[in-house]
């Protein structure tokens, strides 16, 4: 049995960010990964590093997203310097495009309320009417009444991000174990945990981070933790590569460094069904070609569906076990946006052994209704 200072369960974007951040401290860190037959929530990532519109009724989450966007520049530069992998992070600001007047009015009301809730912290955005929008996004469609712009928004390549995190983790001396589905976590009386996996792997560890996507629910039960998450299906459409026309990411479409366009988003409540469905794909392409009609001339290369994490209010669930305080569980919807704070702040919490009180807002106790 291999003994680790810290074991991270889950090789997706969250687990890999924690493994990378924790291993930078020099301890023996292990990343235990079920494998590609697991429900890979990270497959649903669109690649936005996004602040705009997030955090209604929870200004702490708006601040948290913005903090991560700020942390993304040094984070991506460090990954590049260490691994040689560019994760293609750009922060030109992002446009939230509205497709009709009603949607525009709703979005403006949302951002106004977010700014009110933010108080002294501020909430940066600009209203961009149609004529001005055409100067920034020349391909914008005639039906679009306008958009809002937030300077903190950006995008990155999630595939390269995952690879860079795992590469950096291993360069830090971390040990990655694939094809190891955790079947049992047993607290040890003298402290720490024993982890049993399919395939015969066993680990002992002093600290434990559960970041196993949908698998976290079951694993949490081994340590008396209730993790209130459920699947939401998102579908993504990718077009062929084309000349660069979009200098900014938007809520519907972004163009990668290779010239591909990614089209989204969608959200379906269909349990653990991960099959694509044509009505949703039609809705995605209709919205995106209304926003950017030139996309009609491109071929679709592929589409897929993924089962992303959702919580009752959409905000992260960060939890330290009360029965076993050396165990933590982290779940969230926006694994790309929050990757920078996961690799830095949150990893520091684990090393320090405590989630700071000002981040107690992400504890699932917020869902408890007083009887």
């Amino acid at each position: 049995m291999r003994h680790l200072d810290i074991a991270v369960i889950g090789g997706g974007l969250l687990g890999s960010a924690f493994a990378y951040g924790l291993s930078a401290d020099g301890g023996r860190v292990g990343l235990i990964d079920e494998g590609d037959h697991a429900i890979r929530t990270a497959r649903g990532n669109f690649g936005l590093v996004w602040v705009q519109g997030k955090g209604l009724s929870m200004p702490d989450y708006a601040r948290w997203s913005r903090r991560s966007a700020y942390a993304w520049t040094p984070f991506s530069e460090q990954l590049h310097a260490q691994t040689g992998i560019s994760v293609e992070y750009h922060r030109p600001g992002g446009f939230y495009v509205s497709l009709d007047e009603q949607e525009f009015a709703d979005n403006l009301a949302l951002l106004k309320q977010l700014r009110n809730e933010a108080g002294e912290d501020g909430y940066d955005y600009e209203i961009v009417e149609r004529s001005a929008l055409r100067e920034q996004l020349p391909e914008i469609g005639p039906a679009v009444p306008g958009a809002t712009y937030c300077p903190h928004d950006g995008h990155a390549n999630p595939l390269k991000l995952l690879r860079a995190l795992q590469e950096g983790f291993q360069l830090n001396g971390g040990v990655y174990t694939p094809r190891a589905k955790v079947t049992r976590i047993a607290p040890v009386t003298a402290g720490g945990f024993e982890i049993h996996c399919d395939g015969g792997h066993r680990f002992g560890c002093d600290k434990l981070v559960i970041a196993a996507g949908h698998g976290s629910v079951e694993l949490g039960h081994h340590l008396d933790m209730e993790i209130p998450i459920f699947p939401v299906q998102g579908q993504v459409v990718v077009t062929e590569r084309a000349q660069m026309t979009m200098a900014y990411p938007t809520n519907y479409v972004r163009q990668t460094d290779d010239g591909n366009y990614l089209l989204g988003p969608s959200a379906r409540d269909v349990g653990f069904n991960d099959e694509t469905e044509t009505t949703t794909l039609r809705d995605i392409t209709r919205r995106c070609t209304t926003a950017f009609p030139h996309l009609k001339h491109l071929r679709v290369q592929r589409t897929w569906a993924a089962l992303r994490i959702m919580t009752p209010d959409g905000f992260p669930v960060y939890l330290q076990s009360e029965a076993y305080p050396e165990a933590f569980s982290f779940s969230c919807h926006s694994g790309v946006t929050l990757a920078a704070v996961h690799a830095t702040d949150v990893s520091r919490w684990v090393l320090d052994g405590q989630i700071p009180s000002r981040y107690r807002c992400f504890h699932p106790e917020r869902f408890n209704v007083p009887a």
Partner: protein
Amino acid sequence: MFRRRERVSDPVTIWFCDRAIEAAADDSVAAALLAAGIACFGRRPVSAAPRAPFCMIGNCFDCLVEIDGETNLQACLVPVRGGMRIRPYPGYEPGNDIKMSEL
């Protein structure tokens, strides 16, 4: 680059730009072009890197060509037909500028 394992018994003629190419009747367009020594099917729109078939099973989209005026077809998925006129991915004209070291 590639050598056929069997002699083509009943060839059909297809065209890549102005060049006539003998293909086996059950070749895909991509297989016929590769067998004829054509190593570059076009260039990437952004980086201008040369592109050639990678997967041959319809996944990678690096074999896109124009066939009889229809653009952006996956050469690995289209069977050859006598007289077919194929052009490289738009924006690229073949010449002698593609080196093996670029591929």
